[in-house]
């Protein structure tokens, strides 16, 4: 029954969360009833090849799950919808935070009230752009995801192994969301040396990065690109579970290395010379940067340790034969 559970696990990935157990239990019963019928007819247990044919006849897990999609979702399917909302809310919150900080900095610098209001009200324009881009991006991902999975060839024997309850395999949608987040962050990061204001905001007129920062820039960029590539691999080849399990640990460990290098580089910002800034203010900014980097290094170290533990535990634990729908039958 391992093939059946693996098949259902894949179907479950693309179903709306609230109906997953209900649908999977019903499909499982249908498959097992058909198997029992065939075995009664043949007078022997079905072979693996016969089971493969039976599952192939039912169709690719993605296509089967598509049949359960409610029609009211025109752009983004219910499977992708929670990740869409999550990304939209996070992006809007981040944009709002940045605008509030920029407004606060401007207020401290003595900007007049109408300029502060202009800055704050700019959020509505930004929110509109974010909404349009995130929605468009997820609509495209929703379509591409299905095609990408179908292009991998449809053979039930190649379905990913069953995930353990405590160590789930990277789900396609989660992997996509991570990929989008890392992709956006990487683009932003790559823009920083050419357009420092995307990181420094209005302060870019007063301060800029030191040569030490520029020297270490690619040491920080490399983990991002490696992490991005591992996420692509985890998505395209979900059966390569070691990539899925190790990608977060590798990204976190490399980030810690990069942050430690930055911490050892001394001052990371200096005066541009375009506008006057007092030496003690500059020193305070550098201390603030160091404090932020130290806190980040500590947080990411904890994350790296946790991901390392999960990775090792996942390898030792292997996979179990649990039913993807769990043992409880809803509605009973």
């Amino acid at each position, binding site marked *: 029954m391992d093939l059946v559970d693996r098949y259902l696990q894949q179907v479950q990935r693309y179903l709306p969360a609230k109906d997953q157990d209900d649908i999977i239990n019903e499909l499982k019963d249908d498959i097992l009833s058909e198997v029992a019928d065939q075995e009664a007819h043949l007078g022997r247990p079905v072979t693996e090849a016969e089971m493969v044919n039976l599952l192939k006849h039912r169709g690719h897990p993605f296509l089967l799950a598509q*049949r359960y999609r409610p029609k009211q979702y025109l752009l983004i399917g219910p499977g992708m919808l929670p990740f869409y909302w999550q990304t939209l809310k996070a992006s809007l919150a981040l944009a709002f935070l940045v605008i509030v900080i920029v407004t606060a900095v401007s207020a401290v610098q003595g900007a007049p009230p109408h300029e502060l209001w202009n800055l704050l009200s700019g959020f509505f324009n930004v929110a509109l752009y974010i909404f349009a881009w995130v929605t468009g991006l997820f609509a495209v991902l929703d379509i591409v995801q299905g095609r990408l999975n179908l292009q991998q060839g449809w053979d039930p024997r190649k379905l990913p192994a069953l995930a353990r309850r405590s160590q789930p395999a990277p789900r396609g949608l989660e992997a996509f969301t991570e990929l989008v987040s890392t992709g956006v962050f990487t683009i932003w990061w790559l823009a920083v040396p050419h357009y420092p204001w995307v990181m420094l905001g209005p302060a870019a007129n007063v301060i800029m990065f030191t040569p030490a920062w520029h020297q270490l820039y690619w040491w920080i960029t490399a983990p991002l690109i490696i992490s991005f590539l591992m996420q692509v691999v985890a998505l395209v080849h979900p059966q390569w579970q070691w990539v899925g399990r190790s990608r977060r640990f590798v990204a976190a460990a490399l980030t810690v290395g990069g942050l430690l290098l930055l911490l050892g580089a001394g001052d990371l910002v200096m005066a541009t010379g375009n506008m006057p800034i007092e030496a003690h203010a500059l020193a305070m900014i550098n201390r603030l940067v160091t404090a932020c980097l130290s806190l980040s290094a500590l947080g990411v170290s904890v994350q790296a340790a946790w991901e390392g533990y999960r990775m090792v535990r996942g390898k030792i634990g292997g996979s179990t034969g649990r039913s993807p729908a769990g043992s409880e039958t809803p*509605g009973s």
Partner: protein
Amino acid sequence: MRNTGQAADTTSFENLRLELRRGCLVLAVLGALRVEHYGYTLRKELTEWGIAIDEGTLYPLLRRLESQGLLLSEWREEERRNKRFYRLSPEGVTTLDALAGEWRALTASLGRILQE
């Protein structure tokens, strides 16, 4: 070119055939569920009646009909497995009667048209 044309004709016919069947499936499912069934036995019975329906079509259809209040369902254990049993709701019975009337009128009309 001829092969391409034949393939297009076959695809076109298949699409029309599926379209024709799709409308009948609701009536067939509602009719079969005058007697309680779980999914697999319903599928088998429909196949025996000459209306083959795959599980990817049947189960979403059952969910839709249930959400429309035409079916009632209940999880029960049978043959040591939990199964979801479906039957017509009182509203489903009324709807089935009305649809069956429409069907008879339609087939009578089509019968006359096709004879001419």
